[in-house]
């Protein structure tokens, strides 16, 4: 089966290459430059650009093999400044629409797709990737395509995916008398709703009472979609894909906010959590163990902890374990939120087919796997999970087990605002400035400011 696919892929590729060779063949030795803007911002993700460059090299080899006179040069940029400046750059360039400025390919968050596609800056990919569907794209995990679909069209090729999780300090669990088996069993208990958020809080209390930790529960200080995991854990929803409307689920939001408020009031979450600098959070959970749990962890932390704090992977294995975000109540479910990045082809691009071909080449298993390994991301293709270098990584294999419970951010233009509003409300209830109910009102106000009545309030 796999060999068949491989053959099919090569055949399609050959056809594409020949087509390319002939369509430009008239002029002598022509070089086509394909430009791409990719973004980290975290440095280990540099293969987002590198893979495109390698794809270009491979394509050139093929072109040379068929004796074509044209060559492709990939000019890929990798952005490590913040998201904000990357997006501002894309927006301003796209608004101008000059093909000399706008690159052919963007690699960005799937969240950008509704915004950029609705502005007419992107090219729908359905037809462009159709030739490679069977050879390449059918192999992708199907749910990933949902994250890049907007208005019934596919606008991006998934580039990577990760999972978010709750990290627990193993050493503290052991200190509380947990056996290795009990620790290993935790993930299952969470998955089967035997271990709920209330149990997590109780565990945090135990850790604190045993004097093991200063900060039983920590979470991300800045805004991010992670907080929606708790809305789902409390049985709520935040997006109605059919109606393409954001959903404000009062009960679940209030339960979520109450969860954060109670933790803060009880001192389980440190004072002023939303004002912590990120490095302090990382150090507390991964290096020093002054925290018991990080409830908004992300799997890519693994790579960065090693890079920035000089800790080894063995030490991480020794000290940390993780689970899904536990369910909050009977209606809720354990979950984790994924945030796929995607390749996109820009509307002003002069070489859309070529761009699609490069993207396809960059999505090859070996290339995508090297990205996954370097940046601690998950597989996006089924065959990747069987790929030797991938399976060798125990971490990726283990983390991949959380995938079935994945949810995504809402593919809605105002989701960013919703995310910020939820984060603000969390900050508000944690500092006691708001009650959970007032927090929900604030969220409603902030969201409706942006979208008017175009929102479902339950």
């Amino acid at each position: 089966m796999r060999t068949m696919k491989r053959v099919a892929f090569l055949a399609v590729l050959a056809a594409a290459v020949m087509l390319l060779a002939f369509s430009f063949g008239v002029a002598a030795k022509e070089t086509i430059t394909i430009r791409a803007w990719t973004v980290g911002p975290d440095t280990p993700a540099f293969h987002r650009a590198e893979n495109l460059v390698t794809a270009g090299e491979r394509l050139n080899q093929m072109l040379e093999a068929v004796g074509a006179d044209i060559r492709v040069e990939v000019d890929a940029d990798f952005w490590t400044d913040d998201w904000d400046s990357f997006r501002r750059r894309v927006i301003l360039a796209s608004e101008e629409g000059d093909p000399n400025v706008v690159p052919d390919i963007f690699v960005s968050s799937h969240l950008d797709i509704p915004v950029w596609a609705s502005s007419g800056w992107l090219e729908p990919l359905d037809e462009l990737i159709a030739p490679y569907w069977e050879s390449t794209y059918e192999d992708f995990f199907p749910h990933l395509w949902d994250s890049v679909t907007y208005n019934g069209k596919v606008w991006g090729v998934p580039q990577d995916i990760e999972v978010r999780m709750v990290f627990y300090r193993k050493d503290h669990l052991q200190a509380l008398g947990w056996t290795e088996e009990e620790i290993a069993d935790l993930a299952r208990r969470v998955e089967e709703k035997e271990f709920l958020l209330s149990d997590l809080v109780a565990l945090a209390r135990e850790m604190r009472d045993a004097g093991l930790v200063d900060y039983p529960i920590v979470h991300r200080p800045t805004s991010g979609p992670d907080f929606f995991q708790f809305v789902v854990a409390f049985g709520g929803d935040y997006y109605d894909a059919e109606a393409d409307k954001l959903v404000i689920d009062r009960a679940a939001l209030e339960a979520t906010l109450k969860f954060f408020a109670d933790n803060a009031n009880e001192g389980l979450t440190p004072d002023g959590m939303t004002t912590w600098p990120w490095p302090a959070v990382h150090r507390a959970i991964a290096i020093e163990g002054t925290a018991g749990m990080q409830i908004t962890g992300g799997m890519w932390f693994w790579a960065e902890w090693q890079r920035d704090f000089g800790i080894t992977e063995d030490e991480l294995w020794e000290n940390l374990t993780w689970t899904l975000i536990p369910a909050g109540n009977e209606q809720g479910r354990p979950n984790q939120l994924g945030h796929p990045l995607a390749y996109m082809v820009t509307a002003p691009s002069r070489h859309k087919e070529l761009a699609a071909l490069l993207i396809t080449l960059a999505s090859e298993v070996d290339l995508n796997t090297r990205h996954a390994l370097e940046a601690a991301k998950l597989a996006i293709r089924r065959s990747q999970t069987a790929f030797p270098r991938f399976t060798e990584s125990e971490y990726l294999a283990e983390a991949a087990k959380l995938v079935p419970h994945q949810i995504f951010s809402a593919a809605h233009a105002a989701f960013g605002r919703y995310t910020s509003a939820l984060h603000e409300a969390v900050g508000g209830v944690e500092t006691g400035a708001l009650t959970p109910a007032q927090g929900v009102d604030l969220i409603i106000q902030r969201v409706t400011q942006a979208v008017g009545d175009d929102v479902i309030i339950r």
Partner: protein
Amino acid sequence: MAQLKTERAQLSRFSPERLRVEARKEKSKDRALTVFIYAFLIVASLPIILGYGWLLLNSFSETLAYGVLPKGWTIKNFRFLWELPSRYYPDLWRTTWNTLLLAVGMTVIMILIATPAAYVISRMKFPGRSMMLAMTLILHSFPGVTLLISLYYVLRSLNLLNSIVGVFLVKAGLMLPLGIWIMKGFFDNVSWDVEMSGLVDGASRLQTLYKIVLPQVKPGIAAMAIFSFINGWSEYIYVITFIQKKESWTLSSYVNSIIGDFQFIDYGLLSATALFYILPVLLFFIFTQKYLMTVTVGGTKG
């Protein structure tokens, strides 16, 4: 008069002993003041001294235990001087050159624009003179950054996007109020007699400005140049917004892109690049500060 005289006679002067005691008192008061002033400066400067000390430690150590104690000395954090942190960074020296270009360009534009304007406001008689000065104050109340989008349109229609020139023009515009105020202060202090004698000697007002007045406000031009150089050197948001090509980046974008979204920071690299970034301005300041210290704002001296 007589009264004053008798009073003088009655006035008891200090005895030598008493005078010595008083002098000693004054002296110890004086010493206490000196100690107090040093203590104040040192205590107040502690956050800066410690903060930058920490930066220095960071740049020369592998990692800091507990955030302070260096573990393993190294110069590897400075490897960016001879190799790129990753191939997606623009060349450091080119970036430094761009930064210099931006700072110098802005300085030159500032001098060219603010000097004549300040001269006119300070020394020429025309209706609306003080209104001009008031206007410069009002201009300063425009928040540069929230005009970002509008400025983008302006630069685009002027065909100045993606160029350092566009950025330093905008920057010079934003610095203009300060420049005019500084230069006005200097022009105010140029003696009128000198300018008058220039006129009497047959020069036009423009010639006197160029040949007689300008040489006298050199320290002012230097001070303004320092202000704008420092300002241009540290510019970030306009560069990152209006310049799409990394080849035209400046050092602040370079430093910012080491930090990224602030989740993970390579403290060593960050500190090393920050020091690299700070050093030239610091040296520049030390060598030019005597001009900076001549700034007078406001009316004529005395």
